């Protein structure tokens, strides 16, 4: 059953095309975990997270300079190579320098029919929640125009329930990483999380609930390894987790936009739906772009201590400022609590993996001593 998640992720473009053909509905790409997918889901559209590839960029190099966020550049390269040609739309949130710049570039260079910028307040405040609620209303209206039918409150409530169920299930399976002996590996959980950003939610919930019913009786549990935490600015595949496992480690908890930040915290299903969504997506996602260091560092450190890890691997994508500025502070805080840190400057290339292998092996060896 675990293999189904992996296969879905690997064949994501083909799967989205098939879904589109079978459902007769639209597929919409999103960037970053601060886009409330529930509204897209309530419009009958399949939201899929845009991901890059570990391959050299070619098309994007014609339009962008060299030293940019490799993740954004890789995503755009994929789009220019028409790997995302099935998308009917794109939602680009105000989240970081590069992602927000991608809005203009997408309008300029892509043929995607619906490209919507989503304003997201960049600090936590009451007026931010009020403003974001209004922005989500504008977004909802724009989607209604796009699909040509209203998004009813009942549909929004239903979508919130479906997504809350998804978050509960993802939280449950990610907690199982912490068990000793392990029940599920970090890379397996990461495949489940990534596929949840691509697959129709109801189907993913059904598969995951089924998996959770039987996972503890599995006859092929993963091997135990040195318990590690991964903090990353963006990881859009499971390669680093798999590499850590190959080197004798295991990731038992994480703090990543394409990891636990995707399913952390629920939407209050008893409140007005758009306000409840604004509250969850603004206040409950611990992103260093809007949360100040005090709160962010305590959040990350508490999660690491709770996971009972021996060390932390921090992987920051080159040129990801929000995480680069946080890194020295986070490192200092973790080391002061006796948690060793290994840092990687991330690229989106094949060659980085072998360089990382030697460092991870040495780090794990040090932790085992």
């Amino acid at each position, binding site marked *: 059953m675990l293999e189904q998640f992996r296969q879905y992720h690997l064949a994501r473009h083909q799967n989205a095309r098939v879904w589109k053909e079978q459902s007769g509905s639209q597929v919409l790409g999103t960037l970053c975990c601060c886009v409330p997918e529930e509204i897209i889901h309530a419009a009958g559209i399949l939201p899929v997270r845009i991901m890059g590839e570990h391959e050299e960029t070619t098309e994007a190099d014609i339009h962008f300079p*060299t030293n940019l966020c490799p993740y954004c550049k890789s995503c755009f390269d994929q789009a220019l190579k028409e790997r995302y040609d099935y998308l009917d739309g794109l939602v680009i949130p105000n989240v970081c*320098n*590069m992602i927000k710049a991608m809005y203009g570039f997408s309008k300029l260079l892509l043929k995607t029919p619906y490209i919507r910028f989503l304003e997201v307040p*960049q600090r936590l405040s009451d007026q931010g929640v009020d403003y974001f609620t209004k922005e989500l209303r504008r977004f909802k209206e724009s989607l209604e125009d796009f699909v040509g039918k209203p998004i009813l409150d009942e549909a929004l409530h239903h979508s919130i329930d479906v997504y809350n169920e998804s978050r509960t299930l993802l939280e449950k399976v990610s907690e199982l990483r912490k068990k000793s002996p392990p029940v599920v590996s970090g890379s397996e959980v990461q495949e489940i999380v990534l596929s949840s950003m691509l697959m129709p939610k109801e189907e993913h919930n059904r598969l995951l609930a089924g998996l959770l019913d039987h996972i503890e009786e599995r006859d092929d549990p993963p091997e135990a390894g040195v318990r590690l935490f991964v903090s990353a600015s963006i990881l859009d595949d499971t390669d680093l987790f798999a590499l850590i496992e190959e080197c004798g480690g295991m990731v038992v908890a994480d703090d990543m936009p394409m990891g636990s930040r995707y399913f952390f915290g629920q939407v209050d299903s008893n409140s007005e739906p758009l306000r409840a969504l604004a509250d969850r997506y603004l206040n409950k996602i611990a992103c*260093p772009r809007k949360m100040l260091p005090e709160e962010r560092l305590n959040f990350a450190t508490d999660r690491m201590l709770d996971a009972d890890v021996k060390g932390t691997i921090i992987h920051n994508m080159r040129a990801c*400022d929000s995480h680069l500025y946080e890194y*020295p502070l986070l490192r200092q805080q973790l080391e002061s609590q006796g948690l060793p840190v290994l840092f990687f*400057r991330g690229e989106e290339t094949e060659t980085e993996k072998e360089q990382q292998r030697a460092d991870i092996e040495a780090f794990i060896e040090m932790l085992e001593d």
Partner: protein
Amino acid sequence: MVQSTSARKSLRTTLEVPTLRKSYYAQTLDDSKKGKKVAWCSNNIPSEILDAMDITSVFLENYATVIASKRLASGFCAAGETVGFSQDVCGYARMLMGYVLARDKVPEPPYGGLAEPDFLLVNSYSCDSRLGWFAAMSRTLNVPLHVHDAPYQPEGPSHSAADAEYIERELRSLVAFLEEQTGTKFEPDKLRARRAISRQTSDIMYEISQLRKAVPSPMGSADMFTAVWPSMYLAGTSECEEFYNRLLAELKERIDGQIGIVPEEKFRIMWSGIPFWYDMRLINYVEDFGGIVALESFYRTRERRLPPQDDDPIKDMALSSVRQRAFPSTIIASIDDILEAVKEYSIDGVILSYNPSCRMLYVSQTELQKALEDQGIPTLGLECDMADERTYSEGQVKTRLDAFVERLLAKA
């Protein structure tokens, strides 16, 4: 002994700026000694509000350019790197983090250093770097930080009530924070008066921008990169307005007398992006060949400021910022903007500075360069950090400039 790298200026009014700047920094140190509250600010924090509340503002990006122009940046950046800030982060931030966290490792700071801050103010919308940088400083200096937010507005000016209301509430939060920090009550009349001066000054700057279209160029970027300083750091003061009135008069004088920057103007260049502060003489380099860097992408005042949008100055600020944008937001608007400038200012070629540590500008340069070349406008892309001269090779840059000049002369 620090080697002078200042650009050679042609206008007498511009020569006033170093004195203004020096006295501004001396004043901030004096204010601090006298017990006035000092705010370390990022650019785009509305200094009129601080000024109206008698708070001394120190703009760190400006101080970073001062350090860089004195060729001290590498020492400051290296100090920032020793405390863990990657070479991938903004050169300005690395320098100031070095100053804050590793003061024993940095060279002697210009103007006797900075007045120590009572609190920090940063805007969250200009770039990720500022927020990360100020947040890190707040934690390490243990001083309060206020973050000021605003929407991105990629489609440019709008009449969105939601956007204006959000900005207004953000401005009121800023005022409330300042009142709490200083114990001073905000007085709208004082802000209104400063806004009126700012508006008049901005209109003068618009006229200056218009006059700079003249051939021969009455004022090149070698002057403007310096002359823009009062508008950024003395905004809303009569000292600032008077400065630009003098500058405007001097431009008119030069145009009436047909006085250009070079004896016989053969070609006009536009500089796109931030200059390399450690080698501002580069801006003058083309003058020996009859060329002039006649315009820079940043400091063109594109239109007259809107009249007051409301009697309440905070509401006016919010409405004005939604309804009028000083700079293009997206790559599409930036392409339109640069092509329009090339046409209006009779530009023959464009130098684009590729400065990886300022990502918001860096990201657009390739596409801008492509758009210009597609229109037959010769371009030259130079990739160097704006502040950290360790990334700079003077010889290589000049060789490439020579080839660019030849291309322009062949076309002239």
